[in-house]
């Protein structure tokens, strides 16, 4: 009886007293192990790797790795257009591209590195990914042809549609 009263009291005071608990089987991961997995880049460029590339270098990688699907100058082909559409987003014929729609330049680096080229993702070096990012941003008129893209200069790139998004999610 005494015990039951105590339990009831505990339950009242602390609703999480009986929250589910696991058997604690997670194996601690070392910082080195985590670093190998942690490839995601934050919107502000957090976690960008060392390396660099220019639009001209990107153009030559693009020709061999990307053009077959995304067309010459990123204008689209079998797969989505990556260039153009500027000024169309608030019209009835919006053309969403990396240049006209994407809010963050860091996402371009992150996405190409993780997902492209489609048939062989993960095959590009970080320098090639910087170069391809530079090439696509230059084709979109966002950086000029002399820009060397690296962790610092990429962070500074402001995308034209940076303020085009409103949060539907509210806590």
């Amino acid at each position, binding site marked *: 009886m005494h015990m039951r009263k105590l339990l009831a009291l505990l339950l009242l005071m602390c609703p999480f007293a009986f929250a589910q608990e696991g058997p604690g089987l997670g194996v601690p991961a070392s910082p080195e192990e985590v670093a190998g997995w942690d490839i995601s880049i934050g919107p502000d460029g957090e976690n960008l790797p060392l390396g660099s590339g220019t639009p001209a270098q990107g153009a030559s990688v693009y020709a061999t790795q990307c053009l077959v699907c995304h067309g010459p100058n990123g204008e689209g082909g079998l797969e989505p257009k990556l260039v153009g559409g500027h000024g169309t987003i608030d019209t*009835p014929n919006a053309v969403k591209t990396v240049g006209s729609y994407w809010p*963050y330049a860091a996402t371009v680096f992150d996405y190409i590195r*993780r*997902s492209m080229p*489609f048939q062989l993702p993960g095959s590009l070096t970080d320098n090639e990914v910087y170069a391809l990012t530079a090439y696509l941003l230059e084709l979109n008129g966002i950086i000029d042809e002399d820009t060397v893209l690296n962790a610092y200069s990429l962070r500074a790139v402001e995308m034209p549609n940076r303020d085009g998004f409103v949060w539907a999610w509210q806590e």
Partner: protein
Amino acid sequence: MSKTDKSKDLIESGQVEEVAANGLLHRRAFLKTGAIVASGTTILSATAAPPEVDIWSTTAGRPPEAYGNRSEFESDVIRDAFTPTISVGAGASRTPHGSLEGIITPSALHFERHHNGIPNIDPDQHRLLIHGLVDQPLVFDLESLSRYPLVSRIQFLECSGNSRSLDADQPVAGSAQTIHGLLSCSEWTGVPLSILLDEAGIQTEGKWILAEGADSSLMTRSVPMSKVMDDAIIALYQNGERLRPGNGYPMRLFLPGWEGNASVKWLRRIKVTEGPTMTRDETSKYTDLQPDGTAQIFSFQMGVKSIITSPSGEQSMRGPGLYQISGLAWTGAGRISRVEVSADGGRTWGEAELTEPALPKALTRFRMPWRWNGGPALIQSRAYDETGAVQPTRTSLLSERGKQYNYHNHAIQTWQVSSTREVSNAYA
């Protein structure tokens, strides 16, 4: 007088009253009259077949099967796949709702949408890493996760691009499958993610997570911590067996009531972060463009919605008579509270029967008796949820948010039944 004659009599004598125009009957009409009629058949033309001896009754049957197959006569009930020309892995396949009943989607018919195909993951080698703003980064394998407390829930999964073709200016030709097939419902069993995060120890600045898949697109989405701690699970089982490869084998994130893309398949990594990571699939895609040029981002929850699955597009009616309209209703907000059906394009409505179980964030089956007089009809369903939200008409939805929103189309959809017995998609 037989039961059939009796109910025919009751209906024709007007004792079973229409609850809405063009032949919609009270939802309990079948119970009142004692007649039970399978969807798509008519009792008015029912005839008794003479007994006969069939070949399968006089020959020995097959032995038991190690892994069961359905009847060979059901082989045309299949998903329809959309496969791009070169990048075949960026395709999708849709559930054939027009051929299914009840609320559970067979695993083999669950819709799929992949961003670079289905990986062939060896479960013994697969790992899940939890790291970022946690006290102790942890790695889990499938065997250890299977020892955690499991929860099982029947819940729907819908791609936010489902029913997108209702944005088109003219009604597209299509079926419940081609228009609404990026929707399925399963029993999902898995480990509450909150248990694993508690074990790792979330730091106070950790307000979001990033979830990453192990497929070759390494698909990533950000999810707010409040959802994660509320009802997110790492799903390990689908309808009692391990997940299908196309649905994330050996483990996926499952976020009840939220757009399908966020329930990242083949889950390999969870990073606790301060804010969202702004990945490609939550910026370039899965954002909802409005007429003023701004787009809604993180519009996770699926709206209140319903569809009629029988009769539905590309089916044909057998002839005038008594039918059972059957459909599905669901909402990301919780439970469906009411479904109404119209047979005159939305002018008059009658309340449908919600069949048990009517579970939160699950597909709910509704049914409604209908006496089709053989003339033209425009049938629609309209769902309400427990928060009071009502499924909007297509016109009001499009006038509010334009035609380039692209996602989350939960408008009322119309099937037109023609006097030539065909059923097709229409705008009313």
